[in-house]
């Protein structure tokens, strides 16, 4: 029995050793995996809260603009910035940079960031009562002796994560021996609230920014009605044709003014792609009148989505079919202008109908007003004696240069 018991104990110990032997390695692997997962999680959270922190800083500086903490511009040392416990210190650098940018863009906040290396350095002071080790900021008497700033203030910022809320606390301390706190503020926002993304040099209150955002969203109907004023100019004939001027004068086509309207359709919510279909009308007394239809596809190239508070640039491609009549239209008929004028009994008999393809750039502000320039290729006038080329490329030549101003409703 005793031998059996010893054997059982021995087997148990052996099994225990066999089972426990790899445990440290497994535990290390789990620890490493957990640490990596935690690090990933911290990085994700820091990325998510960054915009919200910036939002709170915007609000803080906006508040300073509305009610400055000082009567005159005052140098302030950024004493310390702390971020939510559990997040890395990378966010601190982003907060400092954003705040510095905001204060530089908004001098009317009367808070001027000041550089003070001795303020954050550790200073040691020995006296009859003992030796005190502290930061320069926490010991203004020592700071003054080592040539620190006089009459300045220290700004302390703390960002805390409280449940679903991100809280920014700020306080300003006068750097005198008694270190009185002269100003403080606590700002809170829900982390899930959409960021307002205010421009640093055009700060608005949160209420104003939300209203503007809401109005911008409401304006985002897919259909708009543009009214467009355009002028198309046509190139003079090339030199080879001009040499004939001595024999038969060549008259270049006149600029044609158009008023266009129709529909424009935003193909995406971001208004990255737009399509338009317009009718146009041209009328200059004693010269010409005409009709046109035009279709165009535009692509936003200044960003991935329409800007709410800045201009947008679109690249567009399109085609137009135009018909013009009147004496001034003669050069579009590809015939001898003098003969044509002599042969016609009525100006309405001089008529030209042609198609064109255009490419251009448009700059728009607030989906309300836009200006554009474009080049137009007119296949019917590729070899014309009366219409030259504004630009020649190996693949396509452009006979017309146009400009437009648009108003959208």
């Amino acid at each position, binding site marked *: 029995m005793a031998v059996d018991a010893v054997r059982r104990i021995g087997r148990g110990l052996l099994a225990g050793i066999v089972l426990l032997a790899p445990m440290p390695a497994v535990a290390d692997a789990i620890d490493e995996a957990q640490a990596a997962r*935690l690090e990933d*999680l*911290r990085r994700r*959270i820091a990325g*998510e*809260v960054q915009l919200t922190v910036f939002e709170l800083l915007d609000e803080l500086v906006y508040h300073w603009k509305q009610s400055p903490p000082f009567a005159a511009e005052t140098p302030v040392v950024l004493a310390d910035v*702390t971020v*939510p*416990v*559990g997040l890395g210190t990378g966010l601190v650098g982003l907060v400092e940079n954003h705040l510095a940018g905001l204060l530089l863009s908004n001098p009317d906040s009367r808070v001027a960031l000041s550089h003070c290396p001795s303020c954050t350095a550790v200073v040691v002071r020995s006296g009859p*009562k*003992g*030796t*005190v080790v*502290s930061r320069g900021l*926490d010991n203004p008497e020592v700071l003054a002796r080592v040539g620190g700033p006089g009459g300045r203030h*220290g700004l*302390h910022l*703390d960002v*805390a*994560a*409280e*449940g*679903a*809320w*991100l*809280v920014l*606390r700020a*306080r300003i*301390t006068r750097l005198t*021996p*008694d*270190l*009185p*706190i002269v100003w*403080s*503020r*606590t700002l*809170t926002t*829900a*982390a*899930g609230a959409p960021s307002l993304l205010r421009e640093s040099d055009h700060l608005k209150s949160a209420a104003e920014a939300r209203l503007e955002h809401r109005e911008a969203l409401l304006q985002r109907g897919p259909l708009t009605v543009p009214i467009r004023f355009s002028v198309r100019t046509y190139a003079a004939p090339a030199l080879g044709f001009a040499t004939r001027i001595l024999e038969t004068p060549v008259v270049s086509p006149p600029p044609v003014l158009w008023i266009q309207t129709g529909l424009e359709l935003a193909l995406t919510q971001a208004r990255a792609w737009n399509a338009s279909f317009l009718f146009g009308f041209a009328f200059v007394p004693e010269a010409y009148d005409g009709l046109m239809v035009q279709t165009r596809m535009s692509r936003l190239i200044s960003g991935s989505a329409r800007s709410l508070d800045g201009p947008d640039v679109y690249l567009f491609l399109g085609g137009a079919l135009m018909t013009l009549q009147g004496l001034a239209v003669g050069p579009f008929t590809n015939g001898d202008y003098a003969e044509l004028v002599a042969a016609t009994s009525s100006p309405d008999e001089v008529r030209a109908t042609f198609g064109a393809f255009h490419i251009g750039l448009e700059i728009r502000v607030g989906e309300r007003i836009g200006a554009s320039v474009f080049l137009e290729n007119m296949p019917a006038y590729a070899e014309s004696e009366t219409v030259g080329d504004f630009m020649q490329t190996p693949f396509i030549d452009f006979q017309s240069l146009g400009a437009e101003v648009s108003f959208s409703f």
Partner: protein
Amino acid sequence: MEFWLFVALFYLPSLLEDAQEPMDGWLPAAVELENLDCEPITVDGARQIAPGRIPEPSARGDFLERRAVICRERLMSPGIRRAGDDAMLSGLSGHAEEMAALVAALEPDERERTWLVETFHPDPAVGHKIGFAVKNALMGRSLKVSDRAPTLAAGDIQVIGSLEPAAAYPLACTRYAAAGSLGAGDGLLAIVLRDRSETILHAGICTDGRWRWMR
């Protein structure tokens, strides 16, 4: 049988509706629900926040007692911070306001002093946040607050460090006053975590060399 059908018809819909309600649902909460901060709000408030999610009351009455709960995802997932610290920091604003209320409730001659705030917490980062929040809360109540920290001589620290908390804080208070670190016009609000497993903060004040536990 008819009775049970009657009961089922009346109660089953609401039972199913409440099954996964974050606050008092009877099914186990999903993992993602554990990371939500939920609080009840009025039904009218919910209709304003999320139009269309809660039906408008019928003209004839809807004969239902509606409740609304607003839930937001917590910023810090479980595990990022020590559980005790997370519990403390998640309610930091409330804790700070409670501390400030203690000072604001003092007699005017004490309340009008310049208040210094010291935090005694094992984690300096958490202690810093608590101190910051309490200072702002005191400022919010229009009290005079200083960023100065009272100091003690090395010998005092050695003696005080060897004592039990019940004796250490009163002695430290006496020494602050004796060394002139805490003047006649100053008051010290000390925020203390007495046990790492606690999630409540204790508070004591030191004025004129006299220590009092306030909480």
